[in-house]
């Protein structure tokens, strides 16, 4: 129906998660209407996030290129407690609870053979290295309370078992089958508080 740049923009927007053809069309027409400088800022932000954002070399959270992430570069954070999450967005959820003052480790996913994700596709080896190198005393397994998250937590508990570290799992009470990202801070805060030691 549309041609040229407008068509291209609708197509690109339509590829984004959660954006169907109708939304893509609506956003494209919105962009067409806004002042050039607003559109410029949007385009620049998209480019900048790709150019200047990478993963933290220590914990694999998002970070500015060449730097540690905000959490890792904060001297006041307790290096003896590591909170293991699947995704950088989960860090945001845990931070909202204001219950956790340690550092994170982002696995970049969960075990999911259906999608071809095994231990080698996750940052598991790096986690095991960090536990020794940073003198961690406790590892909190804060993967999602769904099947894949539980399997991942169980796998990590086994791998961490031989190391001299206490392994804990966030308490249940989170909606079963849910995602951390959508848990409210009160519920997630309680789950962190009520974490229990895991014996593999």
């Amino acid at each position, binding site marked *: 129906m549309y041609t040229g740049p407008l068509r291209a923009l609708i197509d690109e927007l339509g590829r984004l998660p959660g954006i169907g053809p109708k939304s893509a069309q609506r956003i494209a027409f919105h962009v067409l209407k806004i002042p050039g400088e607003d559109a410029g800022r949007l385009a620049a932000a998209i480019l900048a996030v790709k150019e200047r954002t990478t993963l933290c070399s220590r914990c694999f959270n998002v970070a500015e290129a060449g730097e540690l992430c905000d959490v890792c570069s904060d001297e006041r954070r307790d290096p003896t407690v590591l909170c293991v999450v699947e995704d950088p967005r989960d860090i945001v959820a845990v931070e909202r609870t204001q219950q956790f003052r340690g550092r994170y480790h982002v696995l970049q996913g969960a075990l999911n053979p259906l999608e071809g994700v095994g*231990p080698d596709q996750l940052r598991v080896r790096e986690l095991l290295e960090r536990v020794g190198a940073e003198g961690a005393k406790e590892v909190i397994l804060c993967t999602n309370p769904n099947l894949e998250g539980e399997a991942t937590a*169980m796998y990590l508990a086994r791998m961490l078992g031989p190391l001299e570290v206490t392994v804990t799992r966030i308490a249940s009470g989170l909606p079963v*089958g849910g995602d951390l990202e959508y848990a409210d801070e009160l519920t997630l805060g309680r789950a962190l508080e009520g974490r229990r030691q895991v014996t593999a």
Partner: protein
Amino acid sequence: MFVEAALEPASAGTTVIEGPNGAGKTTVLEAVAFLGTQRSFRTTDREAIVRAGATSAVIRAELARDGTPVLVEAELPTSGRVRSQVNRQPVRDRRDLSRAVPVTVFSPDDLAVVRGAPGNRRDLLDDTLRILDVRAGLALDQLDRVLRQRAALLRQAGGRLAPEVATTLDVWDERLATVGATVAEARTELVTALAPFVVTGYSSLAQEGVAAGSSLTSTPAGPGGPAGSGVVLTYRSSWTGDLASALASRRDEDVRRGVTTTGPHRDDLEVRLAGRDTRTQASQGEQRSLALALRLAVHRLVTERLGAPPLLLLDDVFSELDPGRSRALVAALPQGQALLTTAGPVPAGVAFAARVDVRTIGRRAAP
């Protein structure tokens, strides 16, 4: 058939949907049942559900539950994930749908529950558990997922049990053992709860059948009493002891064959009649009465537990029954909202609240 059709059934009692064969009566019931089960009772072929030439079908129902309106919607593409919504909120899990739209379906295909592969009988149990038992419903959804994850892992292993495969398999097996045990336990309890309903249902249906002089072969009266008694339901696990050990002892074979050879997905509900296995050693009349008795038992148990009958969908069931068994079935059904299709006259004894000709419900006819 239809591009679009709308039906407003009587809010209580039975709405009869009439029309010649091929006019779309079953499609209407299939659509309603799909809302609650995300499955067709007629076919597993999605292409066959969606109108030829279309890429998806949309089903929408407005229900009233305890006086509160509930909007349930499903969109089924010819391929890919079915999307369901309750009150415009996406519903991911089938157990939540089953509770939002509890349905009981009687269809001519029900014979497969008695005669067909074990999967038919597991579906009967699992559909019921999804309505009645939140915990079992969750376990069923997780069982389905963990089996698919394990299958993927076994495929990737390529027949060899490397150490890293073994470690990951341990983790999935522990999940499978946990949810699998929950499922098997819930199914066993359900079978125990269903058994008395099946026994009474069968004896009234079978006796009516005999009295009406149907082709029903009369069962030799054993020590259990007259024909019709002696129905015994047994849940048969595909393993003995605990599931974790069974999985461990089957591991080498599972890896070699690339499939999970034991677990609740291999279990069966055994239905015996006077000591005979009804899958293979019962007459067609006995099998038909048993199939009805099983459905009826589920409907009555769910009605008792929920305090209200599920929406009842009767697809052309009476055409297969002699008048005696039709009467017995009608008498045994709890009162509630029902949709009944028939190509012939309304069966004797059925009191109906409304009649609709299926040829009048289309909003736009397909070209």
